[in-house]
């Protein structure tokens, strides 16, 4: 599926890009490739969707986003796609997923995340969301997070790597 040189390249960059003027030349040197070849292969990996994007991953709490709320709805199956798409239109929504319910313990199937600078602001945004998407008739809950135990990229190859880093898989 992935050719061996691409795999080497992925392993070389997964913990981070070098912070030097010619980062791709440095990676090329490590892998005995040319800078042009590294650039071409990375562009292709991005085009094919293996790399979603290059860039920075922030620690949201360090940027002042202290209020991290998971908002969940019990949405009828026939409506969930429409509501999921409506919810996703709001710029304060960071993630929105359909997930399986877990019986009586957990009746919710539509999950979204709001990262806000304060709980009061997040509650306002939730009110706005419920109003604009007409969600008032459906059971919901909001789960704030008082503590984050762990936030890091996950592993790609068990050797040492980090492959994705997104809040909710």
């Amino acid at each position, binding site marked *: 599926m992935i050719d061996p040189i691409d795999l080497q390249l*992925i392993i070389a*960059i*997964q*913990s981070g*890009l070098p*912070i030097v*003027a*010619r*980062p*791709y030349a440095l990676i090329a040197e490590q892998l005995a490739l040319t800078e042009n070849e590294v650039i071409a292969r*990375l*562009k292709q990996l991005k085009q094919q*969707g*293996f790399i979603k*994007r*290059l*860039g*920075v*991953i*922030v*620690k949201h709490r*360090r*940027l002042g986003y202290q209020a*991290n709320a*998971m908002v969940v709805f019990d949405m009828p199956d026939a409506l969930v*796609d429409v509501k999921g*798409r409506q919810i*996703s239109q709001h710029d304060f*929504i*960071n993630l*929105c*997923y*359909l*997930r*399986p319910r877990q019986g009586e*313990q*957990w009746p919710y199937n539509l*999950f979204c995340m709001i990262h806000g600078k304060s709980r009061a602001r997040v509650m306002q945004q939730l009110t706005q969301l419920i109003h604009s998407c007409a969600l008032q008739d459906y059971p919901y*809950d909001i789960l704030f*997070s*008082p503590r*984050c*135990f*762990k*936030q*890091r*990229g*996950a*592993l*790609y*190859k*068990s050797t040492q790597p*980090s*492959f*994705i*880093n*997104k*809040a*909710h*898989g």
Partner: protein
Amino acid sequence: MDDIDRNIINTLQAGFPICPSPYQQVAETLNISEQELLVRLQTLLETGVLSRFGPLFHAEHMGGALTLAAVQAPEQDFDKMAAIINAFPEVAHNYARKHKLNMWFVLATETPAQIEQTLHKIEQQTGLHVYNMPKIHEYFVGLKLEA
């Protein structure tokens, strides 16, 4: 952190060029020198404002798997349960949340089969039932937070 740092973070959350001198290209749009960008980026990583600078892979395209899972940890054992769960390298994130299900974590593994195996090990080591909630559909993933 000043306005230049905030600009760097906001710009680099949107992407990073794949060309011979990418930092030079980004620095020009930010109206700073390449050297200043390199130094500031290094500092933002060292001080922990940024958790990482590099690629964000598509887990499923790479043959990997992800899930969101939760447990109901008894209050008196909460820290102990968190320590057991966090010790698994497959656990990428773990958050306490206010609900009966009070600990929520994301697993990322190299293969789909390892999700089940890891959840099983977590159940064995914690003695707790793990609620497994893999995504059925993704409506939206936006990873930008304005600095």
